[in-house]
């Protein structure tokens, strides 16, 4: 399946990605619940929280797509089918949140 990779190598990749996903999940919670910005920053703090949360989510999504979904090893044409919709989704969420209206 993975070009030039043994089953043991693949397993190690999976475990590494799994560990990274768990760490990033913890980071998501810490950033959202325990990372506080000064009140004087107003709406900027919401923008920062959203940006940090999205960046972590995108990093996790990329790891799942690249390794678990085998995009790393597969035909490059396939990347078009997931990277473009994912990119559009991220732009949509970020643009609507940051530019779309008033924030707390």
């Amino acid at each position, binding site marked *: 399946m993975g070009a030039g990779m043994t089953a043991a190598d693949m397993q190690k990749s*999976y475990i590494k990605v799994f560990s990274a996903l768990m760490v990033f999940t913890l980071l998501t919670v810490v950033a959202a619940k325990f990372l506080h910005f000064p009140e004087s920053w107003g709406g900027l703090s919401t923008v920062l929280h959203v940006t940090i949360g999205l960046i972590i989510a995108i990093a996790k999504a990329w790891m799942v797509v690249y390794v678990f979904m085998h995009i790393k090893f597969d035909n490059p044409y396939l990347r078009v089918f997931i990277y473009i919709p994912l990119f559009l989704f991220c732009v949509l969420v970020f643009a609507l949140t940051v530019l779309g209206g008033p924030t707390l």
Partner: protein
Amino acid sequence: MSSALSLAHEPVTGIRHGKLGMWIFLASEVMFFSGFFTAFIILRNSNLSVFAHGASELNWPLAALNTVNLIVSSLTMAMAILSLEHGNKSKFQLYLGITFLCACGFLVIKYIEYTAKFSHGIYPGTSSFFGLYFTMTGFHALHVIGGMIPIGWMLAKSFTKRGYHDWERVEILGLYWHFVDLVWIFLFPVLYLIF
């Protein structure tokens, strides 16, 4: 043989028909869920206090546990595919079984969350936040159930005399399952945390 699961290759790109079909389906699913996320953000921007209050009512530790559940199930699904590819039937059954159990665990936690909301008089019609919350998580849970059916079928078939040997078809199912995990990776912070 059903062309949807055909293992023949599409002549232009060289991608297997079944795999290409699943990726195209997943691309449409990204658009499907994007509609909900868009609605969530637009409604939030015009109902800040309602959404802030709604999010504060949600049980984020349980949702975090569900995130762990799905990440574990993604790992075990990947391991199941690898095991079957290398002819290790018992490990395939073990990993696919754990995947199925994780999915069950996800639904149990979702059930606990929903019943807790209902017991507090919170329903989809309570506010625009909860309308979207129940819709988005409800559709996601339906996708989980939809994935559990073929997982259960493949697992059950592996215990028969004939067994189950098509790792490429399990890989195609695995794409769907990882996508279900992907959606939750975005749902969890958007609904429970960052807003």
